[in-house]
């Protein structure tokens, strides 16, 4: 009989223990990921990612010029005309390196390589760089070649320099649109500024690669 009483008491005590300490347990897990840096140039519009843009005449960056006589003052790529509302190409500058604003200022440079003399090949900067992530032109503090015609040198020339507002441009990128022209005479004056002062193109076949380079940490 005593033993039976003891057993009952023990069960009561055990029950009180459970009641006094509400059951709970906790464990933590740490999830981690490294988001890789993106630093890239791309022709706009990008296949799949961007909607088609009918204002860009050569979305793949392959443009050609018609046969010229040498008498023209300026020759546009095949299919283009002055003030037709198009741009030859769009360039997207993509960067997500926003964690070090001082070291990751970036620039885009351009140069040409080929047998077209610099005074016979020009680029038109259509307007301000456009940060497509914030849906408005946003060039505050950015440095770039001004809107208008520029001779394309064979050495790197600055096309655009990002300011602090352009360190994070992903996913849609900062967009610049450009157009090109041949100057058969080698001479071009815009306003009072003589941009090209070279020689006329001799008969022959010409080609050039226009090379864009995006560099950070400058």
């Amino acid at each position, binding site marked *: 009989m005593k*033993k*039976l009483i*003891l*057993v009952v008491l*023990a*069960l009561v*005590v*055990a029950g009180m*223990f*459970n009641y006094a*300490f*509400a*059951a*709970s*347990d*906790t*464990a*933590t*897990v*740490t*999830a*981690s*990921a*490294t*988001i*890789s*840096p*993106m630093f890239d140039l791309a022709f706009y519009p990008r296949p799949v990612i961007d909607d088609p843009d009918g204002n860009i005449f050569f979305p793949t960056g392959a443009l050609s010029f018609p046969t010229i006589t040498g008498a023209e003052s300026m020759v546009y790529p095949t299919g283009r005309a002055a003030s037709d509302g198009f741009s030859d190409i769009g360039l997207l500058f993509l960067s*997500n*390196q*926003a*964690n*070090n604003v001082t070291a990751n200022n970036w620039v885009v440079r351009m140069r040409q390589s080929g047998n077209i003399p610099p005074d016979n090949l020009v680029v038109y900067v259509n307007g301000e760089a456009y940060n497509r*992530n914030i849906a408005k032109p946003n060039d505050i503090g950015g440095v770039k070649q001004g809107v208008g015609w520029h001779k394309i040198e064979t050495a790197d020339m600055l096309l655009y320099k990002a300011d602090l507002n352009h360190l*994070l441009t*992903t*996913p*849609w990128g900062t967009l610049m649109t450009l157009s090109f022209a041949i100057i058969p005479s080698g001479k071009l004056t815009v306003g009072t500024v003589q941009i090209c002062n070279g020689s006329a193109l001799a008969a022959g076949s010409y080609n050039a690669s226009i090379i864009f380079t995006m560099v950070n940490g400058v």
Partner: protein
Amino acid sequence: MIKKVSLVIVVGFFVTFSGLYAAEQRIQDVIASVVVGSTFKLTLDRATLDFGSIKPGERVELYPAEPFHQITCISNNKKNWYLKISVPADINGPGGQSLPKDRLKWQIFWTNGSGVKKEGWESLQDKTTVVYTSGPLDSQGDEVNIKLRYALDVPGNAPAGHYTAVLIYTITESL
């Protein structure tokens, strides 16, 4: 002839004596008692989840690059219990940058429990979320294993760098 009779008598006496001796023994009842303590615990098979390197705009699931994350719950309290998840902060990155916690998602892939589990992918939220509610067989002391998988949706505008988030799993007997 006489010898044989005597022998019988001696044997019969011995047997009777043995019977008397046995009658003096008493088998006592022994009551064995034991108190089974309360068990209510939660263990994880690992404390880190590494999504590796992800490009902006990508969605990455841990499985199959990593095995499922297994949570083991044991209760012998014969009471319902709840496995919950909470995240105290956003997904913290470099230079004060962060990703919203709902970019991190979880899904119960499998359980041997008899309870009710959340179905489909769930995003981490500001409030504590019930992952699993125990069933009638889940609080009898057996292990209830729950295997989860995780996914991370990285926004396209995520700055580069290393990001971490702390997930807290808790089992309680109250909601």
